[in-house]
């Protein structure tokens, strides 16, 4: 497919790897923020193309993984109601709440439906005027415009049977929270290309300056990631800490202005608890007052719940890049995708799921295009 296959070329990947080896003079630790990048790195064995001095650590960029247990429990409560059709992205169905998951609620008779787009949930509400349709709005800035459009369409169509449970989170405050931690090892960041496609990268400028870290906005294919690493290393080796854009075919400095405007109209920024990371100020989205009638938490009065995480799950450390998934004692034994202890083992973008899928045996990376690496 155009704009995908050419960025998986094995020979070009090797050239980038050689370029990276030439500029590297000492150890560096770089975090890729987005779970999509984590999967590409583990799947294509990109980390194994890099010199030994370079450590890639995996960031918290998986919205499914960081959705707090309290919100999952609210979703479970709503999904079990007989009048509700509960619409969710497929990734959320196996994420464990404090006692069960959405898949179990569905098996017990709950009307839980997987949707590909928030706009599909609006259609479901139109087609089922006598049922209550609740959409579980999970995602980063990448997903927020589609969610905002669903709100806009539902309001415009006057749908009174549509609402959403909003779990949207924002990336820059989480990066700041990681950098502000006293034991932070991250020296450079690969920022998430699709988040920046929507939001642009101006908000990263003060972060790069304050913490003296290079931040390279990076795409998701092997050549994108390798070039992002190279840009980051050139800055680190040269003593610079700037915001740089690798993913120029999609990301403009100001982002997507109509999408940003849509987000601003529909949401307001609020503090949010992240699973594994705790409360982060100004890191979540909630429906603005103009759209409060579509807020499922208010509409159904789901109680404020207080729950404890499984003590055995170390996903908090994984999400902060302090522990590799394979270093967790439960990994692959008491915690598998079929019986996960935490969300990082469930989501298609969770670091534990990526390692379980590609790294249980001695590494067998998927072939980059050309199959001759």
């Amino acid at each position, binding site marked *: *497919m*155009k*704009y*995908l296959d*050419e*960025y998986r070329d094995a020979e*070009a990947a090797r*050239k*980038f790897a*050689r*370029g990276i080896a*030439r*500029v590297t003079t000492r150890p560096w630790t770089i975090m890729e923020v*987005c*779970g*999509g990048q984590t999967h590409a790195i583990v799947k294509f064995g990109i980390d194994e193309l890099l010199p030994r001095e370079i450590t890639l650590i995996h960031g918290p*960029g*998986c*919205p*499914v993984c960081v959705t707090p247990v309290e919100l999952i429990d609210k979703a479970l409560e709503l999904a079990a109601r007989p009048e509700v059709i509960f619409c969710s*992205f497929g*990734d959320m169905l196996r994420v464990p709440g404090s006692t069960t998951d959405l898949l179990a609620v569905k098996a017990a008779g709950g009307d839980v439906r997987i949707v*590909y*787009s*928030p*706009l*599909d949930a609006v259609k479901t509400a139109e087609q089922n005027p006598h049922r209550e349709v609740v959409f579980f709005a*999970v*995602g*980063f800035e*990448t*997903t927020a*415009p*589609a969610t905002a*459009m669903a709100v*806009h*369409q539902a309001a415009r169509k006057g749908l009174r049977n549509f609402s959403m449970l909003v779990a949207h989170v924002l990336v820059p405050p989480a990066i700041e929270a990681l950098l502000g931690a006293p034991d932070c090892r991250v020296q450079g960041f690969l920022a*998430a290309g*699709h*988040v920046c*496609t*929507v939001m642009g990268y101006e908000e990263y400028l003060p972060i790069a300056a304050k913490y003296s870290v290079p931040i390279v906005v990076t795409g*998701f294919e092997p*050549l*994108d990631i390798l*070039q992002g690493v190279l840009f980051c290393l050139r800055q680190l080796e040269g003593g610079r800490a700037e915001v740089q854009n690798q993913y*120029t*075919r*999609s*990301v*403009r400095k100001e982002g*997507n202005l*109509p*999408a940003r405007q*849509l987000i601003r109209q529909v949401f307001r920024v609020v503090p949010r608890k992240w699973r594994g990371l705790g409360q982060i100020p100004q890191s979540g989205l909630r429906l603005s007052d103009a759209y409060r009638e579509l807020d499922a938490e208010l509409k159904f009065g789901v109680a404020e719940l207080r729950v404890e995480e499984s003590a055995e799950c170390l996903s908090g450390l994984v999400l902060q890049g302090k522990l590799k998934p394979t270093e967790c004692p439960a990994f692959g034994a008491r915690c598998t995708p079929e019986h996960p202890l935490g969300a990082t083992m469930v*989501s298609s*973008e969770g670091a534990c799921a990526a390692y379980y899928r590609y790294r249980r045996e001695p590494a067998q990376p998927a072939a980059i295009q050309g199959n001759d690496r």
Partner: protein
Amino acid sequence: MCLAIPGKITSISGEDELMRIGKIDYGGIQKEASLACVPEAKVGDYVIVHAGFAISRVDEEEAGKVFEYLRQMEELSEPGSAAPP
């Protein structure tokens, strides 16, 4: 979750800008996506689509720059040439 893939717009419908829908071809598979936030996109353009929603139009000129960079990097690393920038 932030998975978004490029596809080619094969047709556009919809009464106004915010309701603009495109038929998108992903290497043979066709699916609809909202074009509300890419008002500049035309039939034949590639857009990057996430959750049924186009978030950007692919900039063709920029798309080639990775390869241009690689070519320059290789030239500069030839023995006898200056160090890469």
